[in-house]
């Protein structure tokens, strides 16, 4: 009971601080005409931590942390790519160009940026609709992570935790989603950072130090091989057997799906357009790199090490996957609950709430503007009396869709699936296949054409959907459409574990390139408008 009281008090204090910071930022925005000049004095650490906290969510900590408990420390390849692609290349290379082009074209959303870059209202409309329909998959995964943790912590049903969690997030998002969320994001990011440092240090200390912990995990390999050996598992401190089921799942979905997909995330690309100057991006790179290392690096390392804890703990005596009754997304919550003191469990719950809220607010905001502004207003030319209200309504629908998915996804996937990791990887892979070739081409070449951008977008979308529905067993088998039409669970048993991004992205790149070479380049006037005098 004391534990519950502690959690309620800590949660309320956190929410009050968050609400106050949000209000401060809102008031600051409305009363200052030189908001941006005042904003220039905001410390760049705050800027970068705000970006990082948007990027990292419960998906990373609970979902992929759980995946690391299953697949091992090989998931750290995703940390490497998250830092290299998601911070360094995103900030230094993509970010600066996105900022400049966004300003020149007066674009305020990602669909608007690519729509104006390619002079294609169709591209803006289609991408807006795609984001609105597909992003609930990612948002739903983030919600699952938070709800799963709360259910474990408070010993309540998942459904009850889901309702409680979504209610808090919805209030925050609908009240927030304004400029000035910067301060709350930075506050949340700071909590996340402190929480993860404590988690890492405690875990290593509990298990005997860095090298001894790793050694214990290495020695435990035979226990894992008993359970997963047939799928190519070789231990948590080794990569799986090349070409095996685990190898494909780890490398193609978890590592590549997110590691590459991060570059084409609409809600992150927009952040670059709101950054005040290139200097901020440079400074943000330093903070972002450290932040992502401490978030994902810690989550994945601790995730894998939970196996040592659970196996050696007499209350469990099993590896993590079995200790959590094969619910991968419950491994991290169970570990926090069992291994860490009650006060840390409360702090960690706030850490997860913070991670989820900062990510979900930007996702819902992106969904809202994708539907309200890009699809309805600019695309279908449906003019509403109050566009801001329309966006907020669309946000509300997005919240409902995401919650429904958070409810149904655990029932949809087979037991033992890393649901959060799958949902996140699928969305990111879809974004990569549809947006990355045209986004990269649009920023870095003057030759790419409107026809090529459209062809690449629709080909990537079609290829990804086809692969998900008829080849990728994680989706195709429970969905059953392939079985209905072709009488087989998936089209090919040999490639059923290969993630959609592996097929759809190369196809999209090739089509974009071929159509570019066979269609007329854009006018010089338009190119000058997009690139300036560069």
């Amino acid at each position, binding site marked *: 009971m004391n534990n519950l009281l502690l959690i309620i008090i800590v949660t309320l204090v956190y929410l009050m601080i968050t609400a106050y910071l949000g209000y401060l930022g809102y008031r600051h*925005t409305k009363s*200052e*005409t*030189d*908001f*941006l*000049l005042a904003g*220039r004095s905001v410390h760049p650490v705050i800027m970068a931590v705000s970006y990082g906290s948007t990027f990292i969510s419960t998906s990373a900590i609970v979902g992929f942390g759980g995946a690391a408990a299953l697949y*091992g*420390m*090989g998931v*750290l*390849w995703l*940390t*490497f790519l998250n*830092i290299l692609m998601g*911070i*360094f290349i995103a900030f*230094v290379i993509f970010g600066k160009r996105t900022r400049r082009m*966004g*300003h020149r074209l*007066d674009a*305020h*959303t990602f669909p608007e940026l690519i729509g104006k870059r390619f002079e294609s209202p169709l591209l803006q409309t289609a991408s807006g609709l795609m984001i609105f329909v597909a992003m609930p998959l990612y948002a739903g995964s983030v919600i699952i992570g938070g709800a799963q943790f709360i259910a474990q912590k408070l010993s309540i049903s998942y459904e009850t935790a889901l309702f409680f969690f979504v209610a808090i997030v919805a209030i925050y998002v609908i009240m927030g*989603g304004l*400029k000035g969320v910067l301060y709350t994001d930075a506050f949340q990011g700071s909590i996340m950072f402190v929480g993860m440092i404590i988690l890492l240090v405690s875990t290593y200390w509990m298990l005997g130090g*860095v*090298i001894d*912990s*790793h*050694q*214990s*995990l*290495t020695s435990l*390999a035979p226990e894992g091989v008993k359970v997963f050996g047939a799928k190519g598992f*070789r*231990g948590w*401190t*080794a*990569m799986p057997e090349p070409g095996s089921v685990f190898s494909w799942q780890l490398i193609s979905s978890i590592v590549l799906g997110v590691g590459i997909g991060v570059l084409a995330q609409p809600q992150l690309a927009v952040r670059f*357009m709101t950054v*005040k*100057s*290139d*200097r901020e991006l*440079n*400074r*943000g*790179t*330093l*903070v*972002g*790199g*450290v932040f*992502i*290392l401490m978030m994902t*690096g810690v989550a994945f390392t601790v995730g894998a090490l939970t196996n040592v804890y659970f196996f050696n703990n007499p209350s469990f005596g099993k590896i993590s996957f079995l200790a959590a009754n094969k619910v991968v997304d419950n491994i991290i919550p169970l570990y926090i609950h069992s291994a860490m003191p009650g006060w840390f469990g409360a702090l960690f719950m706030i850490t997860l709430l913070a991670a989820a809220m900062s990510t979900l607010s930007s996702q819902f905001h992106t969904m809202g503007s994708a539907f309200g*502004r890009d699809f309805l207003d600019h695309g279908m030319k449906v003019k509403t009396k109050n566009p*801001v209200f329309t*966006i907020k309504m669309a946000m509300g629908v997005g919240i409902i869709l995401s919650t429904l998915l958070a409810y149904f996804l655990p029932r949809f996937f087979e037991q033992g699936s890393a649901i959060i990791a799958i949902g996140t990887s699928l969305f990111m892979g879809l974004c990569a296949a549809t947006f990355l070739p045209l986004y990269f081409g649009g920023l870095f070449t003057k030759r790419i054409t409107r026809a090529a951008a459209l062809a690449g977008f629709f080909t990537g979308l079609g290829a990804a959907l086809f692969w998900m529905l008829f080849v990728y067993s994680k989706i195709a088998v429970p969905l059953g459409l392939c079985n209905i039409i072709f009488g087989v669970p998936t089209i090919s048993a040999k490639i059923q574990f290969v993630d959609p991004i592996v097929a759809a992205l190369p196809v999209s790149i090739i089509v974009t390139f071929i159509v570019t070479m066979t269609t007329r380049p854009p006018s010089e006037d338009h190119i000058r408008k997009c690139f300036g005098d560069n």
Partner: protein
Amino acid sequence: MLGLSGIGVLLAYTLSIGAALLCVVYGVKNWNVPADDVVSREVAEEKTWEQHEPDNDGEEL
């Protein structure tokens, strides 16, 4: 090495730390790049752009 059994995982562990260090070095080196005059110009551009933000379309900030 480091108690890890596979070279793949060892590489992932060390490269992750290496990538973060790359970000730190880059950030330190470019902490004051570009200079103030360029930043002022960029902020002025941003102010114009901000006026067309969906949340406050046309409102003077």
